[in-house]
């Protein structure tokens, strides 16, 4: 009976292959897009120095990465050696004991790293154990077209300028932002909220969205939509970047330095030299640039912790950060790289960026931020597409956030 023999053979074959699935020497879980390019370069350079090393790399979008690494940590799956973390996730990861103590693992961290980024790499924040090394020195900037308008000082100025530009120009929208739910929409909204004196979570750790300041901020945000391109509700970074580089918008309420390293490159931009990158406008409170740094950490259950630590040191060295900045425009986390003449010559806004990074405001250091952000993102988008009034959206979001915080 050949069928039975075949089945038997296949079963044996399957069992054998399952058991010998090759294991890599280093597994890295990181972001997609430009970040993936950076990690790809790092892996290549690292392999050049350590020949014969097998390195596996996972590239995932924001939500996908968070889900994958969280599940792996909770389950002790020991799947990754190096993980890339948004600084807001780090609070939960550090407080749950999911990350390896880097002081114990060796290496420490030197004085060259910008202190705001080091603070979020420690738990308790600022003073505690070092659990991560800052990899991307992202800070939320604001971009506007200097040929179309003057620099707006306040968010009210932004609305006025958006209105004026979109009325005067047929092919140029007043403003763009990321309307995509979850992290993107929240990130765009936070500087506006903060500039109005509003907060998502108050200093007492309680939900604080149901406030007149927050409502004012949301109303202003919704007003911006009037002057934004169609479909902005589903815009993500690539759409915002395209609008800026194609010259089809006058402003972007957020610009992450890593999105647009080639603002002045005439081959990639239709408006080279015309986009100014500055810290976010203020309103009742001064400008509050948001810190959005990405960290590299070693999971406590990593199969190859020493190798992972060594890799992290390699990619966060001044030399490699300079290479990443020059070649793909990834914002450094070391002050010395921002001051490097070669780097400044290429990116004229780097002094502004370092200044913003030094005073950048981190998102609330609570371990439920992931859920709070999703709730806020969902309700902001419901308000943005007009399914809910701003009042109801904030009220319900606040109630849901309060519940999430109580867990």
């Amino acid at each position, binding site marked *: 009976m050949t069928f039975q023999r075949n089945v038997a053979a296949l079963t044996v074959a399957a069992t054998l292959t399952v058991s010998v699935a090759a294991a890599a020497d280093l*597994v890295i879980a990181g972001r997609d897009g430009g970040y993936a390019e950076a990690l790809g370069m790092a892996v290549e350079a690292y392999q050049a120095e350590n020949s014969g090393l097998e390195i596996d790399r996972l590239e995932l979008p924001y939500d996908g990465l968070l889900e994958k690494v969280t599940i792996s940590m909770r389950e002790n799956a020991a799947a990754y050696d190096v993980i890339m973390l948004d600084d807001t996730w780090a609070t939960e990861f550090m407080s749950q004991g999911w990350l390896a103590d880097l002081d114990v693992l060796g290496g420490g961290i030197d004085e060259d790293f910008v202190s705001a980024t080091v603070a979020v790499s420690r738990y308790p924040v600022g003073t505690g154990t070092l659990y991560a090394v800052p990899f991307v020195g992202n800070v939320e900037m604001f971009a506007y077209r200097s040929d179309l308008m003057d620099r707006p000082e306040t968010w009210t100025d932004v609305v006025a300028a958006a209105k004026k530009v979109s009325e005067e120009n047929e092919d140029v929208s007043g403003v763009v932002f990321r309307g995509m739910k979850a992290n993107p929409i929240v990130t765009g909204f936070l500087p506006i909220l903060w500039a109005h004196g509003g907060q998502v979570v108050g200093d007492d750790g309680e939900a604080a969205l149901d406030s007149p300041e927050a409502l004012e901020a949301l109303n202003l945000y919704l007003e911006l939509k009037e002057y934004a391109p169609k479909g902005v509700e589903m815009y993500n970074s690539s759409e915002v970047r395209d609008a800026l580089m194609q010259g089809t918008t006058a402003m972007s309420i957020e610009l992450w330095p890593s999105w647009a390293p080639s603002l002045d490159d005439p081959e990639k931009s239709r408006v080279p030299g015309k986009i100014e990158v500055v810290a976010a406008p203020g309103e009742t409170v001064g400008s509050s640039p948001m810190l959005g740094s990405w960290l590299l950490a070693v999971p406590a259950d990593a199969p190859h912790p020493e190798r992972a630590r060594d890799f992290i040191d390699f990619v966060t060295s001044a030399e490699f950060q300079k290479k990443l900045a020059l070649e793909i425009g990834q914002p450094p986390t070391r002050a010395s790289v921002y001051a490097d003449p070669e780097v400044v010559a290429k990116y004229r806004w780097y002094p502004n960026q370092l200044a913003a990074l030094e005073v950048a405001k981190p998102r609330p250091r609570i371990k439920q931020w992931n859920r709070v952000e999703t709730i806020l993102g969902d309700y902001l988008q419901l308000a943005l597409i007009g399914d809910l009034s701003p009042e109801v959206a904030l009220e319900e979001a606040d109630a849901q956030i309060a519940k999430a915080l109580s867990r």
Partner: protein
Amino acid sequence: MVRKRHDKIRIGLTYLVTAVFLVPIVWMITTSVRPPIDYVSTSISLIPSQITLEHYRELIEADLMGKAMNSLIVAVGTTTLALIAAFPAAYALVRLRFPAGLDIVFLMFVLLVKLTPPISLAIPLYQVLRSMGLLDTLAGLIIVYQVYALPFAIWMLLGFVRDVPVEYEEAALVDGASLFRRLRSIVLPVMMPGLIATSVFLAILSWNEFAYALLFIQSPENFTLPTFIATLITEDETFWGKLSAVGLLASLPILLMVGFVQKGLTRGFGGGIK
């Protein structure tokens, strides 16, 4: 005469609709060899401006073969395990008498499992796999895929066992053949086409499965093709060529088996009708 003309229109229309149905697949095939510059065009031509194999090259570099191997292992393992468990069960349900209608109860339960949304079992299955130490392994995936595969296999094999004339077995029984021998030398050979159709179905099912693979596999080296494809659908929507290439490669094996599907489909789902 009128009828003949109607027939011609009907036939022509059938060809046309079939062609329209296939346009997305044709688009996938041609996009897989298109240079990236073509994506941002507004042309509706399905013919590439020039042909490139760069997407296929990139995929090979991204260890596509490894993921395909994983998918193959999982498909073969799932199919084998499901058949081993389902065949004796289907045989017993058709040929043996059960007390108190227990066979009907069992069948109804199988049906319920078949209809249960897989996501609703995902949370506890996590714990099941963890306690067996099989999280993030292909073997674990083969086991949880039985949630889909086993009810399907039992249901489909029921009909095929019924088709085996009971007289053949009775004759062998008179000759004193044991159950094992009857199964091996009579039932299995007669059922062979049915078993093959069932296997093909099970293999396609697990080859294409996404939700459990997404949840239970964390290490990139254990990713199956659908989860690998999902990682290519990212914020930067510019991987169309790569996506098409991997989509085509992942689909080729099952497109080749589409003939079997046609035979098996109505069979496996019909159950009661036929």
